[in-house]
């Protein structure tokens, strides 16, 4: 079973704050444990929402809101990691995605590269950057409604086009929040709440994807992870498979 753990961000990082050395070391060791156990599939942080955009598609009409973004409905139903030349290019691909799925809200934000937080040097001649598009949950995704055969077909075609253009690095759909759990770590106390979640106002700060045996194992990793992250809210969501 694949699980995505999304941790939420806060005002400090939204205002451009950098993680402390201790936090970088702690998260590094934690992610190292996940890697050594053979269970980590992916891990990424997101740049502040001021560097991103929100796209709202309604009846074929697109509304673009530039960051900084306000957390409204931050429950995530799917994601895609893209390598593109600009935010505008990422927006175009995301719009093509919306063309397949219909009414949808998507946030697009740059992924954090090591050199963004002072670790290592940016490779010379790198003209592209990774952006992460997050599809917000809605009534349909929360109901677990499967895609129609036509949507499947069109999504397959889009994925294959994005792949041959070298744009799509990874993509995944998440299960409805009724199958999720939320772990809050505040004031030295951990509280676990089972889904479904009516809402989530906190913007996402980053995620890890793990291949695990059970939901209980996901929660145990989440406990360890939040201890390292500090004051944080973390959503634990089963990954359903490819976004379709």
């Amino acid at each position: 079973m694949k699980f995505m753990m999304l941790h939420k961000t806060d005002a400090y990082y939204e205002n451009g704050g950098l993680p402390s050395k201790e936090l970088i070391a702690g998260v590094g060791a934690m992610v190292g444990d996940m890697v050594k156990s053979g269970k980590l599939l992916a891990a990424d942080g997101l740049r502040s929402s001021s560097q991103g955009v929100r796209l709202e598609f309604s009846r074929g009409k697109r509304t673009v809101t530039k960051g900084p973004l306000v957390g409204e409905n931050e429950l995530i139903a799917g994601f895609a990691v893209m390598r593109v030349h600009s935010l505008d290019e990422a927006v175009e691909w995301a719009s093509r995605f919306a063309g397949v799925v219909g009414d949808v809200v998507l946030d697009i934000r740059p992924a954090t590269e090591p050199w963004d937080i002072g670790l290592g040097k940016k490779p010379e001649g790198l003209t592209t950057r990774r952006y992460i598009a997050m599809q917000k949950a809605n009534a349909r995704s929360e109901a677990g409604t499967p895609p129609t055969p036509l949507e499947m077909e069109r999504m397959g075609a889009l994925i294959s086009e994005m792949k041959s253009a070298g744009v799509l690095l990874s993509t995944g759909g998440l299960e409805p929040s009724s199958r999720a759990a939320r772990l809050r770590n505040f004031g030295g106390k951990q509280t676990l709440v089972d889904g479904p979640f009516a809402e989530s106002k906190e913007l996402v700060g980053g995620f890890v994807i793990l291949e695990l045996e059970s939901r209980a194992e996901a929660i145990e990793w989440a406990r360890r992870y939040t201890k390292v992250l500090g004051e944080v809210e973390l959503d634990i969501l089963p990954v359903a498979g490819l976004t379709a």
Partner: protein
Amino acid sequence: MARSATHAAIEAVFRIEWPKLIAGLTRVVRDVGVAEELAHDALVAALEQWPDEGIPDKPGAWLMATAKHRAIDAVRRAKLLRRKHEELGGELEALGGEVSDEREAIDEALDDQIGDDMLSLMFVSCHPVLATEARVALTLRMVGGLTTGEIARAFLVPEPTIAQRIVRAKRTLSEARVPFEVPRGEALGERLASVLEVVYLIFNEGYSATAGDDWLRPALCDDALRLARMLAELAPAEPEVHGLVALLEIQASRSAARSGANGEPVLLLEQDRGRWDRLLIRRGLQALERAERLGGALGPYALQAAIAACHARAATAAATDWPRIVALYDALASLVPSPVVHLNRAVAVSMAFGPAEALAIVDSLVAGGKLESYHLLCAVRGDLLVKLGRVGEARGEFERAASLTRNERERRLMQARAEACSALVAPAPLA
């Protein structure tokens, strides 16, 4: 926390800590079997204490300290050899002090040595003194942390069979006094090959189930992938480790596309590539790059990964770079002179240069007689004959393939292809 939730949490902690626990304990007691008993005792202690006291802050260190206390008792009870007793006492004394200090010390000692311990555990579990099936079972139990029941279900054999296999394997290791260490020098290459082979066998059993009703047993694929990824962290300088990771990641990326709506197998070139898992492909291509960056000629696993990568990179089946695949198979055949490799090469030759050239290769394999009872030889020959318009002969090949495979899904696929040929054969003229 409710009692059942605590039990689920303890089980989860155990999943996470088991391999480290076994590896650390085996270093101290020098016996995988004893280490397993101690780890099990620690689990029982956790099940007794944690529901009331809560899960400790550092559960791994708690389990290790508890297991080591039991180790002292075990040593006293069993009156092991005096030398061994001192060795063990020394280790434990060195960790010394009060229980809490001891846990801290163990925690640190573990962090320092755990990588080496885990790698040693892999080498011991895959030791050549053991039969292949014993290596597989022991690796899944000790490094993978699967229960004997889980292993038995994965391999469709009764649980006592697996339990027996593991008991015998532990005894064999103990009697042969197999040292708990990472082999050095010349021995390393050979021993590493054995570890890689075990991981590959586990994956393959999941990926193309040789027996039973299902075509895929995904849990085994996941376990093998996890073992391979662990190995890549433990032995990062070994190109073939990354080659194996790359091969498994890319093959696993196709899992969802390999079965049709009714569970029937869908062959590579007919798969819906939109269902391939991009994340795993990406990981596979990265692992292949790591293998290539380490330099030297690619080994068998990296070459197979490079072939898999050709498919992964092609947006459509028609866009596959077949000449490159043929070249990679040439390189592979020179390293692994196996008729199966030649058979796969023949398939690539057919795609790159036409079925007639490929049929000549397959016919020479038939003449060689080495793949007589291999169902895929018949299946490939059948395919080539269909392409050459010789459907009557093709039907015979598919029928033979159906009679040779032990997998039910595959048998039905071959039968269906034979029947499809029948439909194409013109009725015999009336005499």
